[in-house]
């Protein structure tokens, strides 16, 4: 062992790109705000709405009420005594016991509520929770990756909302505030976004609320299209096939049993369709200086805000059944959304467009990538969506590999614009992946024995966790190698150009209009289809 032997453990970079450092639970032994540096004056500690614990725990309360209430009702309707004879003597004890349990849980709710406090100040949002095991979380405002306002049905009835604040952490939401009054939630979102954007706070009135950024609706998905997209999903295809198969089997074997198997399957399917419909209903996208606003939901509504430049990678897909109708789906990777936690919520949050036309897709692309980095965005991106061979400047898998990828070799390919790398694949399940150069984390070339024999290699771009996995499959080795070098250079340049995380600060003084109209990218002008992009809905 030498003196220089390294100690195990991380050498964390100061302030490193946020992923590890942005949201850290601080072990708060001194929970009072006075002991927190920077929290002295400019942000007061606030509590969430008193009704929140009951809205969160309503399922448990409703279940208890249902079981006891039903018994009570039945007995009183039938004219029987509320308690059995032998229990009646102990009724007072039972009532006292039940009352204690209820009291303790209500007290627990109240204490939880009392000790949950939040504060926005000094470039941080802080949340204190817990009364036995206290936790203080703080998240840096300029690291905000996304802000969601979620309203479950019950909260919506009471005019409350939950605010979710994501920083670049793959795990759970950095900060969840449940529940606030809807207006307070909106106000807090506006404040956080304004601070995150670098809007200067008036030093004379630091308490003055930030105005909410104006927004402009870009598209909405009509319900009939949503229903159509659900009916034409792969799931429906298997439903039809499964249904036909069971009818045929039932007829062939003269047995009725198959129908019984269908009942639970049908219930599950109905629930699944309902979930997708409930989540996707009334989907609208709007643009504001704070970024892209997505709203959706029938009973439970959700409003997401994705600040500019927070989308790490994007994917446009088209299943074969959607092709005749020209529909597409768009999904994104956003740091902080992480991998899909539970199917419903997670996939809804990473969906940028559940179902849309080509014009919608181009409109959304213009929002995500205001500068497409090419003079002919419609041609290049159009070729990425539907093209084959070298349309739009795509470089495809060489012809000699057609035995490895008999269908895909004409479609597998990439094209690089000045701002993003486009990877397209899939003859049947068409897919276009777009990765902005400045979002590339790292990349790798892969080559297995068979690929080496054919002289091809795969290029994988690493991005934050999410539904998009950018991979260029089976490019000629020399092409992949050249792209590997070029992409490293492009990403380096793009990183240099990007100066600050506070997006409004990036705007050159004297050009304030540029900040409020991020839509006005070159993508907006060229094609006739795109011009109707903003008129949908």
């Amino acid at each position: 062992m030498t003196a220089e032997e390294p100690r195990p453990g991380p050498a964390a970079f100061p302030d490193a790109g946020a992923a590890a450092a942005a949201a850290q639970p601080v072990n708060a032994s001194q929970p009072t705000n006075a002991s927190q540096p920077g929290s002295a004056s400019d942000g007061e500690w606030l509590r969430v709405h008193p009704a929140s614990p009951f809205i969160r725990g309503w399922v448990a309360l409703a279940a208890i009420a249902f079981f006891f209430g039903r018994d009570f009702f039945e007995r009183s309707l039938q004219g029987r005594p509320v308690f059995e004879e032998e229990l009646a003597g102990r009724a007072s004890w039972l009532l006292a016991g039940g009352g204690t349990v209820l009291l303790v849980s209500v007290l627990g709710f109240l204490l939880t509520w009392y000790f949950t406090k939040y504060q926005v100040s000094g470039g941080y949002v802080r949340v204190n929770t817990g009364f036995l095991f206290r936790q203080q979380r703080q998240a840096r405002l300029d690291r905000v990756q996304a802000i969601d306002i979620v309203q479950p049905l019950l909260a919506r009835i009471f005019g409350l909302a939950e605010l979710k604040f994501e920083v670049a952490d793959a795990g759970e939401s950095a900060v969840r505030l449940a529940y606030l009054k809807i207006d307070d939630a909106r106000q807090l979102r506006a404040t956080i976004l304004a601070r995150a954007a670098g809007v200067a706070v008036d030093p004379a009135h630091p308490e003055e609320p930030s105005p909410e950024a104006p927004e402009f609706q870009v598209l909405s998905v009509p319900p009939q299209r949503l229903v159509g997209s659900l009916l034409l999903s792969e799931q429906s295809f298997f439903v039809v096939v499964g249904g036909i198969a069971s009818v045929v089997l039932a007829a062939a074997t003269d047995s009725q049993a198959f129908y019984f198997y269908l009942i639970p399957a049908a219930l599950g399917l109905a629930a699944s369709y309902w979930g997708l419909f409930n989540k996707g209903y009334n989907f609208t996208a709007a643009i504001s200086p704070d970024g892209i606003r997505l709203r959706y939901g029938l009973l439970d509504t959700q409003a997401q805000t994705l600040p500019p430049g927070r989308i790490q990678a994007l994917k446009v897909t088209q299943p074969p059944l959607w092709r005749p109708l020209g529909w597409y789906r768009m999904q994104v990777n956003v740091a902080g959304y992480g991998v899909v936690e539970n199917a419903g919520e997670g996939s809804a949050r990473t969906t940028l467009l559940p179902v849309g036309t080509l014009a919608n897709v181009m409109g959304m692309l213009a929002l995500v990538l205001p500068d497409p980095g090419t003079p002919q965005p419609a041609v290049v991106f159009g070729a990425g969506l539907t093209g084959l061979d070298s349309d739009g400047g795509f470089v495809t898998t060489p012809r000699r590999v057609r035995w490895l990828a008999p269908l895909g070799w004409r479609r597998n390919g990439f094209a690089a614009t000045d701002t993003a790398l486009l990877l397209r694949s899939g003859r049947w399940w068409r897919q276009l992946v777009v990765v902005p150069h400045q979002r590339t984390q790292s990349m790798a070339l892969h080559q297995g024995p068979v690929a080496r024999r054919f002289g091809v290699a795969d290029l994988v771009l690493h991005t934050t966790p999410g539904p998009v996995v950018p991979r260029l499959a089976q490019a000629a080795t020399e092409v992949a190698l050249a792209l590997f070098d070029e992409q490293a250079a492009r990403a380096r340049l793009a990183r240099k150009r990007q100066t600050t995380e506070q997006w409004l600060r990036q705007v050159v003084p004297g050009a304030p209009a540029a900040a409020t109209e991020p839509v006005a990218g070159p993508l907006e002008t060229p094609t006739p289809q795109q011009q109707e992009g903003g008129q949908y809905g």
Partner: protein
Amino acid sequence: MRTEAIDPSGITWQRVSPKYVTVRVVQWALGNLATVLVLSLPLVLVLAGVWAWPPLWLAATVPAVALVAALWRLALIPRQVRAIGYAERDDDLLIRTGIFFQRTMAVPYGRMQYVDIGVGPVERALGLCTLKLHTASPGTNAQIPGLPAAEGARLREQLAARGEARLAGL
């Protein structure tokens, strides 16, 4: 070491310590020998006459195949270790691994979130360490095993300094 097809041209790869072969052999022994021993159990039992069912040829073939596969993997280890290389370029660190399934990875300094150094018991005895790089992407599974401890410490400091100088947001 010859340059493979997917290696960028003009790169002089730094190789990891040849002593890392020992670490890999110990890992191999722990995994593979245990497997072979467990698979040989029926053979012993059949030979001892305790078990009647698996015919002798089957009881012998299974561990034999496992043994051959294990020996094959053992024979590959020195080449696999020689195939691990890294190179510090101006703006990124290149790491290559693999013989059959090759991978060449570029991790920009400005994207590194933190650098880990891990030392296992065998590595400690040999004065080696493993360096791990983390970016915001879990796909960046970048590690350089089998570095001499001094080189590991140097690299860590070097990467930290370069990362700080070129740090970019997410």
